[in-house]
């Protein structure tokens, strides 16, 4: 069972390995573009390797199996024994999906389901070096096909063991028998009755003895003809005994001859390359000389040299695998981008709940600060004012520092896109390049999560509807490969996200027609829509029904949902498009959700907060200058017409019967491309407020997104402009 393991460690593993898996999916897509990037191959190899290692301790065997096979594929790849192809990538990505699936299962306290045997088989087949030329073909290509692990070059054994002597064979059998499968012996033994054993026989013998998949290494044993020491380097793995004797051998001082013989003999005991404890012991003995201090460095290495040489020689010939292994290990070095040093020492994992709490408390502090500021401003006491302005500075710093702790690079979301685009493009038979900028832009963790789905949807849209098929593109005189650009940047206290494609663009007339067909507008109204308004039509509910149904991932997010979601984040979304050139979608969201800059206004004697994002401008208006168009009051500002609303009549009880004033303040607010004017009694000023959700009774009141406490200690309702207009306008 997987859950005997320390639960805490399991959780840690899930988090950390989860990060590795996320990175893997990015790296894999990268790899397809740069199939020869050795560093990348190493990194991917290490990724699977690390996950496997951790899973091993947690007894997640299914996970270990899948990762192991995937790791082998990359071991083959990084040793240049095979090249990256789309087919290979499909299999590997499928494996990664499988691993992710198992991950989710483990997360849900289930036992992970092992990957389909077909998948493992496919992976194992890919772990084989490409059978192309060289000795493989010339000797015997067949037996290799089943070989699974640690056999970068199985052809070698085949080449070597053409003439094994009976003696050797007997010895080998003895060795094997002791270890693994005594039952298997007689059959192959008789099969190999002649002086020469055939490759096939030998292979199958090994299969029998070790079980398929492990045998590859065993073969080399036979090479060194007459010397009994030969079988030493049997498989790939070394047993403890072997290791011991190896150490003995290496450190052995004067008597290395004898010592040399010893490890070999003992090594013969196990014919696979797994070193045994005993071997290791004797290896150490040889290296250090029994009882001798490890000092005396001079003679030791010298002595050691010939000894390993003897051993290494057959080993080398027999097993080219060893050769690549060492350089590979070395190759690890440059590729590392010097990981954040000593991560274990300087970082702490904190539950986001705790961060939320801290953020909340800082919010309260901001409120108190606002209140004190107001009081301080009113008092004449100079010391008081100084203290308050000090408090102001400290609170602002604290607020931004706490915000920093909640910040995450947008990379977290962007990281999914290469894979999304790749899969979708392959499905749709399009050629698409995804370029990303500003992945390191930080924003609030909650925002990162909230933005994820809408962004995925928009990117899918660009790929699906934006970019044309390669042939169409070619005809239009564009490069076959489409380009989708995803960028993020910080602009003041906002984040700007841009999704751009160089596809077909949108035709405003088609959109107009559609809008009329769907009954959203009358023909004449539709005709009057500006281009931008037309593009924004795709966000109208019910406009993009087709997508909702065809959404492959079944996420079911239509464009209207995207818009709503962005709206919930106090963000804005905008579309630009030009026929034949492509579309550009711009999303603007605040850096954080917890604290919002607002414009405080008064209606009667009640304060309200208007999100500053929505506010375009404020001015003083002589209300006699308003016009009436289409039965609605409007004002003209710099040749633009804005509808005018008296929100006081909506929001303040009994205000509708008040006589109209002749002068008033007007706030122009914007939602998307739509701009309207609100008539208010009084403008208080800009204030940062902490959003407190409305109580259960009031939750969902149209036009209100929450409440806050103002600097003068009163409660102000925070207006939600879109829903306000929708409900009253």
């Amino acid at each position, binding site marked *: 069972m997987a859950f005997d393991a320390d639960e805490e460690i399991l959780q840690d593993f899930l988090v950390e390995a989860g990060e590795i898996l996320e990175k893997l999916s990015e790296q894999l897509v990268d790899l397809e573009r740069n199939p020869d990037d050795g560093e990348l191959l190493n990194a991917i190899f290490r990724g699977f390797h690390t996950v496997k290692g951790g899973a*091993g301790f947690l007894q997640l065997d299914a996970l270990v199996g899948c990762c192991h096979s995937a790791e082998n594929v990359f071991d083959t790849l990084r040793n240049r024994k095979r090249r990256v192809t789309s087919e290979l990538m499909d299999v590997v990505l499928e494996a990664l999906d499988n691993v992710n699936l198992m991950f989710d299962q483990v997360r849900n306290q289930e036992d992970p389901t092992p990957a389909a045997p077909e998948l493992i088989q496919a992976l194992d087949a890919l772990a084989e070096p490409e059978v192309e030329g060289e000795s493989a073909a010339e000797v015997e290509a067949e037996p290799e096909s089943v070989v699974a692990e640690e056999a970068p070059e199985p052809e070698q054994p085949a080449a070597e063991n053409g003439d094994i002597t009976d003696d050797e064979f007997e010895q080998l059998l003895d060795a094997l028998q002791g270890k693994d499968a005594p039952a298997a012996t007689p059959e192959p033994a008789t099969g190999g009755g002649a002086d020469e054993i055939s490759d096939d026989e030998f292979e199958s013998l090994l299969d029998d003895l070790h079980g398929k998949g492990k045998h590859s290494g065993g073969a080399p044993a036979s090479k060194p003809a007459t010397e009994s020491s030969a079988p030493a380097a049997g498989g790939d793995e070394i047993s403890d005994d072997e290791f011991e004797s190896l150490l003995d051998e290496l450190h052995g001082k004067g008597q290395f001859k004898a010592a040399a013989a010893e490890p070999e003999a003992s090594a013969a005991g196990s014919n696979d390359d797994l070193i045994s404890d005993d071997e*290791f012991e004797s290896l150490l003995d040889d290296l*250090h000389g029994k009882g001798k201090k490890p000092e005396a460095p001079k003679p030791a290495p010298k002595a050691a040299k010939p000894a390993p040489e003897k051993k290494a020689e057959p080993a080398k010939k027999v097993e080219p695998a060893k050769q690549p292994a060492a350089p590979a290990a070395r190759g690890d070095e440059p590729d590392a981008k010097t990981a954040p040093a000593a991560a274990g020492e300087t970082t702490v994992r904190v539950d986001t709940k705790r961060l939320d709490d801290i953020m909340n408390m800082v919010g309260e502090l901001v409120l108190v600060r606002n209140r004190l500021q107001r009081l301080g401003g009113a008092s004449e006491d100079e010391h008081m004012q100084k203290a308050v302005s000090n408090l102001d500075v400290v609170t602002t710093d604290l607020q931004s520092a706490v915000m920093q702790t909640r910040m995450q690079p947008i990379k977290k979301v962007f990281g999914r896109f290469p894979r999304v685009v790749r899969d979708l493009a392959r499905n749709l038979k399009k050629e698409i390049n995804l370029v990303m900028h500003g992945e390191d832009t930080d924003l609030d963790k909650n925002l990162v999560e909230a933005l994820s789905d809408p962004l995925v949807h928009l990117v899918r849209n660009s790929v699906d509807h934006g970019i044309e098929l390669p042939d169409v593109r070619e005809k239009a005189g564009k490069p076959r490969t489409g380009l989708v650009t995803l960028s993020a940047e910080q602009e003041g206290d906002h984040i700007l996200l841009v999704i751009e494609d160089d596809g077909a663009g949108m035709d405003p007339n088609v959109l107009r027609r559609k809008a009329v067909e769907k009954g959203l507008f009358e023909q004449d109204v539709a005709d009057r829509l500006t281009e931008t308004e037309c593009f924004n039509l795709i966000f109208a509910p019910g406009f993009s029904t087709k997508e909702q149904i065809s959404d492959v991932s079944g996420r079911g997010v239509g464009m209207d949902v995207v818009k709503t979601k962005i709206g919930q984040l106090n963000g804005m979304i905008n579309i630009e498009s030009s026929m034949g050139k492509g579309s550009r979608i711009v999303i603007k969201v605040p850096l954080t959700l917890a604290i919002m800059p607002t414009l405080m206004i008064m209606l009667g004697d009640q304060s309200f907060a208007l999100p500053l994002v929505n506010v375009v401008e404020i001015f003083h208006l002589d209300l006699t200058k308003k016009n009436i168009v289409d039965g609605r009051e409007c004002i003209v500002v710099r040749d633009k017409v804005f509808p005018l609303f008296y929100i006081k009549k909506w929001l303040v009880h009994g205000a509708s019967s008040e006589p109209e004033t002749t002068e008033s303040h007007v706030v122009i607010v914007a939602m998307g491309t739509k701009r309207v004017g609100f008539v208010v009694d009084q403008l208080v000023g800009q204030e940062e407020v902490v959003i407190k959700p409305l109580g259960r009774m009031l939750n969902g009141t149209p036009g209100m997104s929450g409440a806050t406490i103002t600097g003068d200690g009163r409660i102000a309702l925070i207006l939600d402009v879109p829903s306000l207009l929708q409900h009253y306008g």
Partner: protein
Amino acid sequence: MKILIVDDFSTMRRIIKNLLRDLGFTNTDEADDGNTALPMLKSGKYDFLVTDWNMPGMSGFELLEAVRADDALKSLPVLMVTAEAKRDQIVAAAQAGVNGYVVKPFTAAVLKEKIEKIFERIQS
């Protein structure tokens, strides 16, 4: 006994740390690869080094070589953690001066045995 655990995967460090703690070795430090481990070893007066093989930056093998090349550290006992007991790797590590190896996954008992063996050998 002061022990340095080197692994790039923090979960693994924690696992090893817990196992060591189960064996009564509570004075442990962690490093995430050879590059961070080496300066720590040079200044930290460690009595024992447990290192993973496969790490970015500086691998366990390179760390081992660096340790053996350093006069102050050359007699530091080193236990190598590997995923597979590949002969070529182990032989290379032994030649480079490793004192023991242990294959993942392992239990506290196995770890104990490995550590005991290493000290037996050093003391003999």
